[in-house]
């Protein structure tokens, strides 16, 4: 793989829900070990962008290239064809996703949640999958909770299991979609600390967040989205310290207290 090529290259991405243009031509590059936070008001298209990268949404125009591979579609004779289930699943396994509402499988234990993809997608033998799951649960501070069901865990613990579930698959890129928005305030920090520590370990992260202080601390770059476009993209010092864009400046005034 060419070292110069970005890990993730989004070019001219457009997405429509019915008659509403949600993404109006988004360009974004991520290199390996980049931690990029997307900020912006709700409805700006941040979450939709993440969901397109993980192929949970179809999109109408543009390309997403992950590690040299075009995601979701192949073009033939100038027409786009969405891949079939098998190919989409393989491509999805290259990215991990952590959701706002955790989405742990309620019928499986914490270890079971982490093991499912290891067993069925990566086809690891059971003992090996269990060992990987335990390593990751230890990593997020939940070794003692491996055999607990999601209903027996706090929100913060559930979200940390979800992070372990995503990371255990050894994805090239991890997408985090407002991972602390559904948490009680006192549980936010434990999850942010977990994200910070996986970022420090060199994971490539694309984060949608409303936690400005966190975005500033953890990110190598911050991207501001407004009405389906990226309007400013730069290091956190620039975005938070000297925003060029008027709307970004207004957005930051409104979110800072």
């Amino acid at each position, binding site marked *: 793989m060419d070292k110069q090529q970005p890990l993730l290259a989004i070019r001219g991405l457009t997405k429509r829900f019915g008659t509403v243009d949600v993404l109006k031509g988004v360009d974004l590059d991520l290199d390996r070990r980049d931690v990029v936070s997307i900020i912006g008001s709700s409805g700006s298209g941040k979450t939709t962008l993440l969901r397109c990268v*993980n192929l949970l949404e179809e999109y109408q125009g543009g390309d997403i290239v992950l590690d040299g591979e075009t995601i979701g579609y192949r073009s033939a004779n100038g027409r786009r064809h969405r891949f079939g289930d098998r190919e989409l*699943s393989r491509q999805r*396994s290259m*990215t991990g996703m952590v959701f706002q509402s955790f989405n742990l499988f309620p*019928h499986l234990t914490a270890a079971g949640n982490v093991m499912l993809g290891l067993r069925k*997608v990566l086809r690891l033998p059971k003992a090996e999958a269990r060992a990987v799951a335990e390593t990751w649960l230890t990593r997020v501070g939940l070794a003692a909770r491996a055999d607990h*069901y*999601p209903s027996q865990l706090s929100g913060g613990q559930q979200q940390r299991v979800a992070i372990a579930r995503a990371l255990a698959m050894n994805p090239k890129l991890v997408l985090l979609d407002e991972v602390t928005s559904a948490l009680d305030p006192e549980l936010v920090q434990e999850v942010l600390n977990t994200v910070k520590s996986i970022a420090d370990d060199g994971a490539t992260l694309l984060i949608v967040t409303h936690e400005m202080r966190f975005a500033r601390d953890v990110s190598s770059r911050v991207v501001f989205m407004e009405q389906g476009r990226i309007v400013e993209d730069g290091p956190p010092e620039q975005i938070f310290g000297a925003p060029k864009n008027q709307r970004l400046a207004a957005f930051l005034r409104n979110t800072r207290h």
Partner: protein
Amino acid sequence: MQVFLDQLWIARFALWDGFLLTVQIAAASILFGTLLGGIVGIQLSYAPWWLKLPFRLYVDIMRGTPVLVLILAAFYIPSVAGLSLGPTQAGILALSLFAGAHIGELLRGSLQAIPPGQAEAGRSIGLTFPQLLAYVLLPQAARSALPPWINTGVELIKGSSLLSMIGVGELLLKTQEIIGRNFMTIQFYVFAGILYLAINIVLDQLGKAVERRVGQH
């Protein structure tokens, strides 16, 4: 009372055969009905509309038709088409089709009640659609579908008595034959009723036990 007990003793083998056949018919019907209902429920939940249509039609026809009419249809229609089904086979066919529609519909309800985030989480770790169904969606749907599924089993035990109309020697027909010999109408109908009740109470308790086991989390 002594007379009844004497008659019961005389009729014990006939009643036992009828009882056994009733249980066997219900068991076969719930087995085939569950297999069929599994397919139907999945199609109703996830198939494109043109594929969904025949399944929808099947479910609505089955659910809108009296079970007795289904049984008579299953008994007479195949013979017109040159297929010879015995009365027991025809009965199991009718009850399986009936159960398949009910189980399909209740599975659809259970699948659609699962929050969409579950499928998204399964997809995001790279599960294919069949894997998603097998390991994420169906286990969750099965849990909420279990009580009405047991209820379908109870319906099939009761519904199997209608097979007496096409000459299947299940519990009700055996009871009627016995009454035809000894004229102890009330006693033997009550006795048959108690047997039906006993099967269904056992089934109900079995369901509750399974529910407790899987429903802990």
